[in-house]
């Protein structure tokens, strides 16, 4: 079997040059999605009327829609509505200036928020009810209780799942190439099409992503160990 190994080696730095784009998409959608997800989790934890119902439907729909569909909805749908709005107020179409990357980050953030909200909700639910009572018995407000007692514990419980979501985001960011974002996958596809060396390029790409995931898994496992040290002491 003849694999063009020189071509494989040459393609590694070219693909890795797009690593910042992949990282940008995964990190930003994790941050934005994480914040939105935390907010949704709190709304649902306190069972705020109407909003609780609304976000229940939101979470169910987002988790039931394939990510690719969400990406297309953001990429095709948002410009459509932005353009409609611009026409109605009589200004130039703003959507033309928005790069595909922004739609990708938007779609991945929305997607992540639904999963993160479930992670935080189950983490909060797993805490003993007695803690809330204890806090109110010493006169803490419900905000203080959440900020100082419940949330720190929920965070620790949530970390392994959040790490999995983040690793999932890195792999999911490959879909962005379908809306012409040049992250690592997009660069790989361009390279492969140019030279017809599909097998070589896709082996290299697969290995790069796999190594990235394994490496990050190791790093995060270390962090988890540190974060959960407090449990051992008790």
């Amino acid at each position, binding site marked *: *079997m*003849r694999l063009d190994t020189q071509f494989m080696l040459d393609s590694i730095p070219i693909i890795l040059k797009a690593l910042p784009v992949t990282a940008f998409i995964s990190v930003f959608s994790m941050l934005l999605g994480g914040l939105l997800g935390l907010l949704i989790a709190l709304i649902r934890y306190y069972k705020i009327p109407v909003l609780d119902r609304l976000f229940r439907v939101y979470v*169910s*729909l987002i*988790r*039931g*829609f*394939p*990510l*690719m*569909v*969400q990406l*297309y*909805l953001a990429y*095709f*749908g948002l410009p*459509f*509505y932005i*353009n*409609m709005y611009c*026409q*109605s107020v009589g200004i130039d179409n703003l959507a033309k200036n928005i790069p595909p990357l922004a739609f990708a980050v938007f779609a991945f953030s929305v997607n992540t928020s639904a999963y993160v909200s479930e992670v935080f909700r189950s983490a909060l639910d797993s805490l003993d009810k007695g803690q809330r009572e204890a806090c109110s018995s010493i006169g803490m407000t419900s905000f203080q209780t959440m900020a100082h007692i419940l949330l720190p514990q929920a965070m620790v419980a949530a970390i392994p799942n959040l790490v999995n979501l983040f690793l999932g985001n*890195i*792999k*999911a960011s*490959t*879909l962005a*190439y*379908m809306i012409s974002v040049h992250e690592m*996958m997009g660069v*790989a*596809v361009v390279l*492969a099409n140019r030279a017809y060396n*599909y*097998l070589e390029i*896709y*082996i290299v*790409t*697969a290995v790069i*992503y*796999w*190594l*990235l*995931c*394994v490496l990050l898994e190791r790093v995060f496992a270390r962090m988890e160990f540190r974060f959960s040290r407090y449990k051992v002491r008790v």
Partner: protein
Amino acid sequence: MGKLFSVSYFGNVIPKLLSALPSTIGIVLASLAFGLVLGFLAAALRIRGGPVMSRIAAFYISFMRGVPLIALMLLVYFGFPQLMSFLGFEAGSWPKYPLVIASFALNVSGYLAENMRSAYLSVDKSQFEAAHSIGMTGLQGFVHIIFPQAVTNALPSVGNTVIMLIKDTALAFSLGVVDIMGKAVLINARNYGARQVEIFVAVGLIYWAVCFVLERILDLLEKRGRKPLRLG
């Protein structure tokens, strides 16, 4: 510019999409069947394959889980024919469906292997010893005692993996397969950019409905499964 959301178009497009539902279900079932076999083999080797095979199985599982699905699909779809021609098997074109199904099966087998492994490990060791003490052989103990309990344990996580697989098959369109997502993309291309939101909301809702029904079925099975499964 027209309406925000055309309900009548939305209503029209749903039956057209549903006509491709058998294709989606076929891909899911075939990938799941092969994925379960591969996953079972990988899990079995991982648990008791000896030092070498267990390492290889661990690598296989980690690789299938660590590689993005789209990269795996492209690798299989473009790589397999190239590999075959290297080996001297020339074919004008390799059929699309088997390659797509193979890539989904490989991907899902990594997740299923982990589901099965943790389900197996969560069965208490004393169960094996008890089976042994009443004179069962290792195989009998596995088939009659361990396996039924492991299946019950595995149900929730395997269910999640299947739901993930269903949504992942939406990527098959990128290789030209006409499942429901492929149909949506075709309709969208024919429309020259009109009513895109309706089309993709419709296709999303179909996936959502399929997953919703499956989740309900799994919930029922789980409740029943509290009583360990009886084989024969």
